[in-house]
């Protein structure tokens, strides 16, 4: 059942009517905290939840799978744990905290508790600002959290099976090489994954 229904029943059990504003407050409080159903090796459950949501905004499910379905959050967790240097790990997690703090500042709630529209709007804002900063005169020496997240999401997604085979195209054993052909004759005409 959905939360409103559950709350109506609770009110009935408790023998009273619950007012609308109160409903909103209790709804939030009772809502199951979003979390991941796998055990991250490096990130905390909260951090893994946040990056899951961010990566799904970067590469959402459309008519093809998105980042979550392609296992990108787990990939990101492992990359941070085993591949990234300590400095880059810190840049990522500290940057994630700053990202979350800014969400709280902007919307009044932690990022993972915002609704989908707010999350998408926020990610786009932070992302676009970061891209502009990269192109500007005071280009930061190292990329901020949002672009690290984008890099990792794209790396994980386009090397995943759905990413490589459904969004891009992939031939395990081409068997021949044609150097100069129209795009329409190059397999499905999509970008080659490798």
């Amino acid at each position: 059942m959905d939360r409103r229904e559950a709350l109506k029943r609770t009110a009935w059990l408790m023998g009273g009517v619950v007012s609308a504003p109160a409903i909103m407050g209790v709804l939030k409080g009772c809502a199951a905290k979003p979390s991941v159903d796998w055990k991250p090796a490096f990130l905390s459950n909260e951090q893994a939840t946040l990056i899951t949501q961010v990566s799904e905004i970067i590469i959402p499910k459309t008519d093809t799978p998105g980042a979550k379905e392609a296992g990108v959050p787990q990939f990101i967790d492992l990359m941070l744990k085993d591949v990234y240097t300590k400095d880059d790990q810190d840049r990522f997690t500290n940057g994630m905290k700053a990202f979350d703090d800014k969400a709280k500042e902007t919307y009044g709630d932690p990022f993972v508790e915002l609704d989908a529209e707010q999350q998408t709007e926020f990610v786009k804002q932070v992302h676009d600002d970061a891209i502009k900063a990269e192109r500007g005169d005071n280009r930061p020496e190292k990329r901020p959290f949002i672009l690290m997240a984008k890099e990792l999401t794209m790396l994980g997604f386009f090397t995943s099976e759905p990413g490589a085979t459904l969004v891009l195209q992939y031939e395990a054993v081409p068997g021949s090489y044609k150097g100069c052909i129209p795009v329409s004759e190059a397999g499905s005409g999509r970008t080659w994954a490798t």
Partner: protein
Amino acid sequence: MNLNTDAEKKNTYDAIVVGTGISGGWAAKELTEKGLKTLVLERGRMVKHPDYPTATKDPWDLPYAGSPTREDLKQQAVQARTGYTVRQDTKHWFVNDLENPYTEIKRFDWMRGYHVGGRSIMWGRQSYRWSEMDFEANAKDGIAVDWPIRYKDLEPWYDYVESFVGVSGNKDGLAQLPDGKFLPPMELNCVEQDLKKKVADKFAGRTVTIGRTANATAPLGHSPQRGTCQYRNLCSRGCPYGGYFSSVSSTLPAAEKTGNMTLRPNSIVYEVIYDEQKGKATGVRVLDAESGEQVEFFARVIFLCASTFGSTFIMQNSVSNRFPNGFGNDSGELGCNIMDHHLSVGAAASVEGFEDQYYFGRRANGMYIPRYRNVGKDKRDYLRGFGYQGGASRQGWTNLVAELSLGADLKQTVSKPGAWTIGMGGFGEILPYHENRVFINKDKKDKYGLPTLTFDADLKDNEYKMRKDMASDAAEMLEAAGYKNVHTFDNKIGIGLGIHEMGTARMGKDPKTSVLNKYNQVHACKNVFVTDGSAMTSAACQNPSLTYMALTARAVDYAVSEMKKQNV
């Protein structure tokens, strides 16, 4: 000492080959096919075609999207210097640097793998003949010593090895890059063809052509276990289709077929046994890498093909009354004259247009621009020259990280082939400098307790002057072709990064200034031959492996004919 025991007889062969890489595999094939019972010793583990553990892995089968972990980079810090060798699909082919240390007085990049097949499994497969100009160069320039051979001496052997190897290439009709016995050439893509036309129009004496690669673009009847290239471009993993030449796919199976080969992996040769009374080598001393046992093997003729520094180490480590400075080292040149090809310099550009054009398949090859500097009437402020290797391609997702596109729009954008880019990097000839040297360091031992090597070598004025042209010529060609955002690159490198190291037991006419004669025979000990890169008297700019193969086949032919005449 030499007691005629059963054990000694059991360990006695007609020939011993040390090493199973590009040259060792050829020595094994040629010796066994000529009827000699041959012991082939490889310091590393066994590898048998088609057992290549990562060969058919799809991108999603590799952890970390193939990236090296921090732990990988710790274990293989030197091997990682290329930027491409230590990845999840190839790292197992390269040494653990902590277990195989060496000392670099100046930065020196020594890339290798210890297993049957050696670097012939991971090599770049570019296969070019040297020309007369290359063999004459030292004599003409008054540099180092003259080669004791010329192109005509090696030409029939280039024919011979190319036919077996299967080299795909185009007959370009250039004096400085002799044509070979080729399988059909691979295609240039649309943008490469565009560059080819424009360079032909605007730069007399320069040619853009397709690379000459040891990938089979047609079946090789003489080698049934060889297939044809499937255009996966995953060669350095090892190819279960037998699509490219390696010892494991090609020469060792031929040797095995004769019934005359005994292949012994995990056998580290650390000394040549020299008999001062007989005035010849009688065998080699082996440290078994698995059991730690020391064993001696004996043979009438010995081929050192353990790679440039591998063979040089064995010779330097073989000290006797006759050879106090290392086996065969009457000249003092053993360990000296380290050469390589210097690289990581060139240019790249964006290419507008060609939006409706693409390619199918992953070509295991690139475009090639043969040397034109100091060729014919061209005269620069440096000696020798360089060739370029490169290619064009359409961008994929990596470029979209820095674009505004996000979400569903990002998925849409990335699925359409991106803008074209093109680039080329030069391979430049390094001159032989006596002082660029390697020597044994008894103070630092490897995990087997064997002494290690110390390198003291760097690029000098001639190379740095050449690099200026390597960058600006590339940019000039791309600009002239009308491409945009033309930018050069010139990175700091160590000698060795080209992975074409050579020169430390050079061939020459005079035993006072060289280690080997014109048949790769040690001047001072006629039954030992050295046919890997250590034999090279100059470096040219062409990828050297094909030349090592030709020298090896020729040296075996000579060795066997000398054995028949009882001269060896």
